[in-house]
């Protein structure tokens, strides 16, 4: 079977990989690129655990075909921290106990970043709607929403 | 003396008796004495409850060798799990 050659930028690095035409970006990121922080909870775009930013826009990587990533800029949870310096969302999730089992956490962090990149001062309701495509079964969302609101404050204060 | 209480499902083996006083140092000794008093009951408690025993309100699984304190209140209950 012939495979498609994809060149893209992931988390700041130029990356090349070969994939099948019918392969999802999620599978390519996990199996071909080795970015296991991108999680599969459903494979049907319902849970958001596989969220990535593609050219700055929030996407479920399970709903994108891997060849579509050619020429794009991708961000996964592995690329959120600046070296040892955690992104404020990551730090606030830790301090705010916004994770229990942690399987949904990478997707929430990416979705929350997509929100704060667009809207640095969201209301609680805006946070809740922006995260409505991400499922968490452990926390009841309370501490996630609080942590996103806190991170927004911190990001505004440092700018 | 331990105060042993029987749930309604166990009373068919005690001839309807709901409570007895038994002198016993351990659950094993208690079960032996209950078997003498109510033939068949000891085996039933062994099988059906897998010897989960509530002593003074606390449920203890695998309790065969558990000491029975003076004046303890004893119930034989089903072993529990949970989520």
């Amino acid at each position, binding site marked *: 079977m012939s495979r498609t050659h994809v060149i893209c930028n992931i988390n700041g690095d130029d990356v090349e990989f070969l994939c099948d035409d019918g392969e999802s970006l999620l599978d390519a990121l996990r199996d071909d690129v080795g*970015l*296991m922080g991108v*999680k*599969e*909870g*459903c*494979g*049907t775009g*319902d849970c958001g655990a596989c969220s990535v930013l593609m050219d700055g826009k929030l996407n479920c990587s399970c709903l994108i075909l891997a060849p579509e990533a050619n020429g794009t800029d991708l961000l996964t*949870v*592995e690329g*959120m*921290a600046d070296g040892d310096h*955690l992104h404020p969302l*990551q730090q606030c*999730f*830790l301090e*705010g*106990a916004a*994770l*229990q*089992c*942690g*399987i*949904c*956490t*990478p997707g929430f962090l990416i979705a929350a970043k997509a929100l704060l990149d667009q809207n640095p001062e969201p209301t609680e309701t805006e946070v*809740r*709607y922006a995260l*409505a495509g991400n*499922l*968490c*079964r*452990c*926390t*009841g*969302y*309370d*501490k*996630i929403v*609080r942590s996103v609101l806190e991170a927004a404050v911190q990001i505004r204060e440092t700018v | 003396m331990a105060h042993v*209480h029987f*749930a*309604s*499902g166990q009373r068919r083996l005690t001839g309807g008796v709901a409570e007895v006083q038994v002198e016993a140092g351990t659950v094993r000794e208690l079960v032996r004495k209950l078997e003498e008093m109510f033939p068949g009951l000891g085996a039933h408690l062994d099988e059906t409850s897998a010897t989960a025993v*509530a002593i*003074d*309100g*606390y*449920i*203890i*699984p*695998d309790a065969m060798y558990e000491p029975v304190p003076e004046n303890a209140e004893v*119930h034989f*209950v*089903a072993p*529990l*799990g*949970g*989520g």
Partner: protein
Amino acid sequence: MTATEERPDYKYVGTRPIRHDGLDKVIGKARYAADLVLPGMLHGHILRSPHAHAKIVSIDTSAAEAMPGVKSVVTGADFPDLGAAPNGDLAKNVIARDKVLYEGHAVAAVAAGTRREAMDAANAIVVNYEVLGHSLTIDQTMSPDAEILHDGLITRGIEPAPTEASNIVARTCFERGDIDQAFAESDVIVEREFSTTPIHQGYIEPHACVADTGQDGKTVVWCSSQGHFRVRSATADVLGWDTSRVKVIPAEIGGGFGGKTTIYLEPLAVEMSARSGRPVKIVMTRDEVFRATGPTPGSKLKLKVGAKNDGTITGVKAWMAYENGAFPGNAAMLGCMTVVSPYTMEHMYLEGFDVVLNKPVNAAYRAPSAPMAAFAMDTLLDEVAENIGMDPIEIRLHNCPSEGDPAPYGPKWPTIGLKECLEAIRDSDHYKSPVPENAGRGIASGFWFNIGEASSATVNLNENGTATVVTGSPDIGGSRASMALMAAEELGLDVYSITPVVGDTEVVGFTDVTEGSRATFATGMAVVEACRDLKMQLRQRASTAWDCDVEEVEWVDGHAVHSPGDHEALSLAAITAAAKRTGGPLGATASLNARGAGPAFSTHVVDIAVDKETGQTQVLRYTTAQDAGTAIHPSYVEGQMQGGVVQGIGWALNEEYIHDADGRMENSSFLDYRIPVASDLPMIETIIVEVPNPSHPYGVRGVGEVGIVPPLAAIANAVHDATGLRMSDLPMSPPRILAALGEAVE
């Protein structure tokens, strides 16, 4: 937080450090079972039954075996028939033998080079079925003409024992006093019939495992599980192997809630790895998770409650049937044991029926069986309170059990904190605030036993004065942080100097499953015991260094202190640095069967708005008060409370299993099986009540489960307050509410 009595001044217990495993989870480095890749690894896929109930006439795997990349194909015939032995039913659930009992039941498995190859090959397996009649409801399966699922299933608990097989597993009965007398003495009697559907635990991580079986006949399994020691014994049993041939390494677990206390995949992966000589990974799809793994049971409950005009409950009569799924369980028994626990009464007659039917076999889900029971009981109690004009908190306080009162399932209550939970809600800002316009308010309480069981912990002091705490309890909600906090408190060591880890089945002593809210209670006890042993050793080492009697050495805040005052205090790090000189490295292990698990109670208040045009509900405000005993890490106690509440909200309002007439699940995705999302909810306000459990060194009670018990009734009561409707069938989804509103108008 409500501290209900003076508590010791702890330095670490009760603080909120960042959890030790947190960093890996926010940078994408935490390793779950599906993340593991081994050299030469194959991918497994399972062929599942399309029928709800059928005989397997024949299976032809030859075409599949000839397909590209296929290295192994197995069917039920490749595994031993355990018959009635323990785990016999589990083995038949892992892979069907003669019969499939529900749609999704595993029939065959394939291991191949890629997932696609495995999937294609599985679809090439030819299975001839003889389709049988099936039962999807309690009424159907209890009817005399129902197709029998298990030949020879004779109902237990009926005298004389029936002579014919049926789908009724057991009748359970708890009786006290004279229920007819209770109703004769009552001023008010209310009764209703209730129903609930199966609900899935809905963990976001699908089941996954990797097995690598070596030439020596031993296997290593990495898996997502709440209890790797149970995975070891169950996997060995299903394979007919000795337990010592199986090593299980717990991966990070992506949620469980009770659903990962059993096994589905592991024996299949091990067997295919043994046959192919290659590691085999199997990861379920979400569709498989819904169709083939354990939901919590559906139920049908008839309750009758009598009370006097002063609010005293005279008695409760209950008839409660619980689905067990395809294989026998004890769900109804647990329903009977929990249904009236938050209340005292002289008379009761509680009858339970466990039934099998053609749906996936139950797995535990947070306080299993208690939420449905509480839904019925607390709805009726609300109705009693309404009829006699009593406040819903007051009626609960009026009937509230306290220490020494008999629990409905027999024993006297030990120290419990229900009264304190009720008072905390009564005194909360939420309850004192007016009910928002066009909304209703509901109250309910819940109970769960909590359990103890076997746990092991090893605590090693490192040469630099730090410590490693190894336990056998998979961490599903932050328990590693709790273990570290208790060890920090004992040793007087900074909590970040402690590394808490979950050890595999070969590095730590036997430990029962993380279930029954037991990890922080029971495994915490083992950690404390090991630390106390270490403190004794540390004092001895100091006495060796000082050449004095050990009785002259005290352990104070992480230091050995010479009580007569002749020597300068030695820090833990100073003692470990010199450990070789004083007798070698310091470590201690404790293994125990924990006694004295403290019962858990919780009371909730919720405000709900109902849109009378669409039937849509909106949770406006929610407050939960729960007795934690002692909150070791309050943030994660709150997290357990909030998570339980929101699962209960989903159960009450939206979640349900929908089957077509042939018994096929119609909503096996998160799109159609709708769990709550962030925009459905308000913040979940928490009040941690602390009535310490006297049986635990820090008063821990266990917090994981009870939070899911009250929401069903609390929400139903709020919907009633808002609309006048008594909703007795779950979920209270918009179409149901709309239909009920329509009937009320007619």
